[in-house]
């Protein structure tokens, strides 16, 4: 089991934003987190990454509380929003920096980036721009690529499909699927796009006002079920 959430609560000014009794995630699962705005998806992600202190409860990554030990950082890579990018660096500098944190040499980083030339579509590298000067879609790409470069066992992405062009959306989906089989990567993504989520994930968790409403494995009826839920 790579992740276990127990009795997790976050309260802001008397309002409970997240209230999750129990979630268990096994190695190699691809999980989609869906829910309308204000369902607590991002807050949950932030607690997962130890960016917000939970009001109550624990999050165990490989059995260790994320608040007490930094060990999870060795195998967890994430991209939630532009706040994760160091926007005054060029993309090359950023990749090198992230690489150096995982003891990758500049040559390693280059080799990795060469593999993703398709994904970047020739717009990211050698562009002579700082990250802050890129469009939001391309910033997203940089963040996702940097997360994947860390060769994570556990990948956390918040709305990865938003702002991406259709080609890249499809490429990202294929990438997640291959990495899942190749090195049993566990992925946790949130999305508003039900099509993509049902396509790429094998398990869906539906949040509403911070509470887990549904938690099920996907089959051919999943998309219809979800559409029915959200059109109510």
């Amino acid at each position, binding site marked *: 089991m790579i992740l276990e959430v127990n009795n997790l609560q976050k309260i802001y000014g008397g309002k409970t934003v997240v209230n999750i009794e129990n979630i268990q995630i096994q190695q190699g699962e691809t999980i989609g987190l869906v829910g309308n705005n204000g369902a607590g998806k991002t807050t949950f992600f932030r607690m997962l990454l130890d960016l917000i202190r939970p009001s109550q409860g624990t999050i165990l990554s490989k059995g260790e509380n994320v608040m007490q030990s930094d060990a999870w950082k060795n195998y967890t890579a994430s991209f939630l929003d532009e706040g994760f990018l160091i926007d*005054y*660096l060029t993309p090359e500098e950023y990749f090198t920096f992230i690489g150096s944190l995982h003891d990758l040499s500049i040559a390693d980083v280059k080799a990795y980036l060469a593999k993703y030339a398709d994904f970047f579509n020739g717009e990211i590298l050698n562009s*002579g721009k700082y990250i802050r000067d890129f469009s939001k879609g391309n910033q997203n790409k940089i963040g996702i690529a940097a997360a994947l470069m860390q060769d994570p066992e556990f990948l956390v992405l918040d709305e990865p499909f938003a702002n991406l062009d259709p080609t890249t959306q499809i490429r990202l989906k294929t990438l997640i699927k291959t990495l899942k089989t190749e090195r049993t990567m566990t992925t946790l993504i949130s999305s508003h796009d039900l099509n993509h989520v049902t396509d790429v994930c094998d398990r869906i968790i539906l949040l509403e006002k911070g509470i887990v409403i549904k938690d099920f494995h996907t089959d051919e009826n999943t998309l219809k079920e979800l559409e029915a839920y959200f059109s109510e």
Partner: protein
Amino acid sequence: MLKTFLSHQQKSFWRSRNKGGSIAAQVVLGFFMLYFLAIALAIGFGMASFLPKIFKDQDAITSFNGLILYYFAFDFLMRMQLQELPTLSIIPYLHLKVPKRKIIQFLNAKAMFSAFNLWPFFIFLPFCFIHILSAYGGLTTLMYIVAILSIMVFNNYLVLYIKRKSISNIIYTVIGLGVLAAFAALEYYKVISIMKASDAIFGSIAAQPYLGLIFTAAAFGIFTINSTYLRKNLYVEELSTAQEKKVSTDYAFLNRFGKVGVLAALELKLILRHKRSRSTAMLGFLFLLYGFIFYKEKAIAGNEFGKMMFGAIFMTGIFIITYGQFLFAWQSTHFDGLLSNKINFKDFIKAKFLLFTIACTLVTILASFYGFLSPKLLLLHVATYLYNVGFGIVVVLYLGTMNYKRLDITKSASFNYQGMGATQWILVLPYALTPILIYLPFGALNMPYVGLMVLSAFGLIMLLMRGFWVNYITKRFEQQRYKMSEGYRE
């Protein structure tokens, strides 16, 4: 239309997020403005009496005439540095049914709302009314005022024009200041004289009042050039400064420090690539002149280090104080990324120590030219350097962990109070008072050198305890990080 624009501007000022949160900072800023205006007014009224004292062999009006061009040369350079282009605010109107002419009118009108356009009124007009009026009569006085205000308007639009053509650069300002200083030196050694030139120009206005209109014509000319340029280039991407190609850089000298060096290099890039941090760092070099205010001959001769200590601490520790006061908030935009990545907090804190130590050492070496004034000052600098590096950094980092305000570092630093909080205000007190309090008893017992030695020893002991302080600050950082990242996200 113009009225609508201005009312929108007013709303954007009062409703902007930062303003509401930091009214205290606004009040302080207001006091600063009042203070400067009071000084300007004092200069304006005082000029009549102190000009003859400074320039003994000429009458007040000649000196006054001579100073006008100097003032505006300086004014020009300051504007180059500080005056902001009023552009971004027009973006929402460009696609609407608003004639371009109106937008340009608005930009031009808005450009006049600058403190630079206020000071000449206070500095020059009193003298005009007191002296020129009685010496030359009404018409000449009027033309003097017209000429002075015309130069002001000329400077105003010339600077905007230059900035729009994006040929402005901080280097040019530094060069400009150098040129100005060179002229002042040449003036001093009586080689050539701007003062004479300035006097000749304004003397001729006194003789032929209507000559003042030449300045009005020049001001009108640059105004027209500016408007025409705007009319032709009213596109957002062309109005803002040109994009140059960015290249990746690597600071080899930091590589030897391993991961700590990588983090320090990251922060160094942050400093060099943002307007606010860059101007903060530049300010540090300007403060190298601070010593000339504090290091008085009498104080040096009498070994009164206590009196000079404030200056010395400020000068050698300027980077620690100015950059450190906003600490951790500099990285507020990507703080989440730093926390969730595989970065050891201890390395993160160590990187700050490293960066501050390098900067402080550099500034202290640069400040050693005061040794020409008196070698004693070098001892003072060494003592304050050890204090800054040993203890000052700790103070700044500790207070930094209590700073929860997001900082917008893309704007210029001058008169920018965004991100100011209680931390910034109380920082200077413990920082500057501690060493003075340490020195004071020895100074009072007339043992100045012992005092410096004790201060140095204090700094040195703290420096040797760095390992302890790194652990202490790291611990504190770990406790505070949720609160900090929450504040930075807003």
